[in-house]
């Protein structure tokens, strides 16, 4: 087994492409925004750390995937979205996006642990979920199918003249699949208001990027008439800025953007994988660029008590885990319910949009722009015996 061949290319210090629009370098972020960003970064990490532990203790069935080291990408990207925007979908490294949109911690742990819960009712596990009430479409495993769905959502928004975008996350590995091409081509062709966030974390499971493609994803975007930008995926502000710019472009009729966020998967592919195939030097180099540490410096400079925030977050997570553990498993009789929708479809709701720039909209009435959100993604009326 030749480990030398498995060595992913070290790409530290990625910079935006020269042709990218000028950034505001986070200038629009307030202290409250930085506090919120940091809180979500911490929450992502703490939840996942707890998740890995629960998995190893046998309290989470099946498998467990985390996004250690990549928190800045999903947090920063989701932070740049308005409440009516839709994510289709956060993938296995993107817990942060769920949290920014307002996913309930107790429901989340219930979901992970296979208990009755409002997110998935136990039909799905690990990171396969999405709270439709918050404008999230849960992912399927097949990569990157949900990118195509995001293009269709964006098409719907455009046709209806709604000012909203769809955003899709995917990894470097996803770019080799045919659906990636079909999504890029159709989105570029029709200038759909969609933002693609490619998390280039150097690896697809054990396979380094140089065994996946010869040309990096961002450089392939031009072939579709799609704008592109490379961004430091470990810099939450940079990701926020880039997605913000791409969102504006989409809303202005400028079509899709592919943002390639350079980052590194710091854990194994899943909790079962020790990732011994990763070069220790590479891992060390990226460890020095931890996204939480990087943003902690900024947060502290803004007078935020990072340690107190972490304690607070840990407390909330602990409470959620306790509540989840006390929740029963789903009723076996419900296993055959809800294959088909009966009656009026329950649609996508509006997500939390904590960025201060959205504060006004976010306070707006929940039914104003988006489809009505109901309390439960699988209300009794939408269930049916299979």
């Amino acid at each position: 087994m030749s480990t030398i061949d498995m060595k992913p290319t070290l790409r530290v210090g990625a910079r935006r492409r020269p042709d990218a629009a000028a950034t505001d370098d986070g200038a629009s972020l307030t202290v409250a925004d930085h506090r919120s960003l940091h809180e979500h970064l911490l929450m992502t990490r703490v939840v996942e750390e707890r998740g890995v532990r629960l998995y190893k203790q046998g309290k989470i069935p099946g498998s467990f995937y985390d996004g250690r080291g990549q928190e800045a990408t999903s947090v920063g990207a989701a932070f740049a979205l308005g409440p009516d925007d839709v994510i289709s979908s956060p993938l296995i490294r993107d817990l942060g996006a769920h949290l920014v949109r307002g996913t309930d911690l107790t429901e989340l742990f219930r979901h992970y642990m296979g208990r009755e819960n409002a997110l998935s009712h136990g039909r799905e596990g690990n990171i396969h979920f999405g709270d439709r009430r918050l404008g999230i479409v849960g992912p399927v495993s097949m990569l990157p199918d949900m990118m195509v769905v995001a293009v269709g959502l964006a098409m719907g928004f455009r046709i209806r003249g709604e000012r909203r975008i769809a955003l899709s996350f995917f990894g470097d590995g996803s770019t080799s699949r045919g659906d990636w091409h079909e999504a890029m081509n159709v989105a570029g062709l029709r200038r759909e208001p969609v933002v693609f966030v490619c998390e280039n974390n150097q690896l697809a499971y054990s396979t380094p990027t140089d065994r996946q493609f010869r040309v990096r994803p961002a450089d392939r975007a031009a072939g579709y008439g799609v704008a592109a930008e490379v961004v430091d995926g470990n810099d939450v502000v940079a990701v926020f800025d880039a997605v913000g710019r791409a969102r504006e472009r989409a809303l202005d009729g400028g079509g899709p953007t592919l943002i390639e966020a350079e980052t590194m998967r710091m854990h194994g592919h899943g909790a079962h994988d020790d990732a011994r195939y990763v070069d220790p030097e590479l891992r060390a180099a990226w460890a020095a660029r931890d996204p939480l540490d990087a943003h902690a410096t900024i947060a502290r400079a803004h007078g935020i008590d990072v340690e107190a925030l972490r304690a607070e977050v840990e407390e909330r997570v602990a409470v959620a885990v306790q509540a989840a553990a006390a929740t029963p498993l789903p009723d076996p009789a419900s296993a055959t319910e809800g294959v088909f929708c009966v009656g009026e479809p329950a649609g996508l709701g509006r997500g939390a949009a904590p960025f201060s720039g959205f504060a006004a909209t976010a306070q707006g009435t929940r039914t104003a722009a988006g489809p009505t959100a109901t309390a439960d993604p699988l209300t009794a009326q939408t269930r049916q015996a299979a």
Partner: protein
Amino acid sequence: MATLTYLQAISDGLREEMRADDRVLVLGEDVGAFGGAFKVTDGLQAEFGEDRVQDTPIAEAAIIGTSVGAALAGLRPVCEMQFSDFVACGFDQLVNVAGKMHYRTGLAVPMVVRLPTGGGFAGGPFHSQNPEAWFMHAPGLKIVAPSTPEDAKGLLIAAIRDPNPVCFLEHKHLYRRAKGEVPDGGYETPFTARTVREGDALSIVAYGAMVSAALDAADRLWDEDRVLVEVLDLRSLVPLDEDAILATVTRTNRVLIVDEANATCAAGAQVAALIADRAFGDLDAPVRRLAAPDVPIPFSPSLEAAVLPDPDRIVEVARELLAY
């Protein structure tokens, strides 16, 4: 009431529903100004514009997957596969994304995939397939297969209004051959079976183009043998009208199931398995099937005729069953 072909009835249903509901949109290859390979969407782009009648690149996964997205955005996409054979290229989006969405996330996916199916015109291995059984074996998809113009229109409208993904099988052989009275305006045909002809000696269960073959055979069995054959048109494969199937067997005690699709694991296998389990006590003879053998549908007329079920073969097997 107008007399329409099966094809005209589909167009009519689509137009009605697009007029009635501005959420309905059409996507597919060449469906716009050209009006589609079979002209089902002829004139729709002129009436409804380019957003609601969209030509797509050749990209079946994108056609189906963007339809899922549009459905989630609140629209009601009706997408067309140029031939049902090409649905294999969008199989994953249909089966894994559309079909499993509601169960997994509570999000409904109201969309229709129109699938021009079937053989009988020397279309060869890639323009003659009947893919319904694949989708019957994929939870979360409804599947309908009209045999008459009236049902074609009513089932299409019902499919568009259904909050779930529906595969709409339109048989190419019926497009211009099947003609009949079609009610005006918007009406829904229920996803249930229909007794096309009553009888007492034997039941033939069929759907799509095989219904008229069954009726021809039933005519001959009456003319030549003075035997009354009951013909049940399934119309919907998912949901499957199990009650109607069991009821016809209870009445006649003998059953022949006809599929145009390849035999193994076909819709007919499911119907036979249902009967063997739940109507066993009513049976006076084996549950017999007629279907295409497990071969790609060959091009040459002599070969194609050798594999597709037809009235002659139905009569032959029916007589064996009656003599059992």
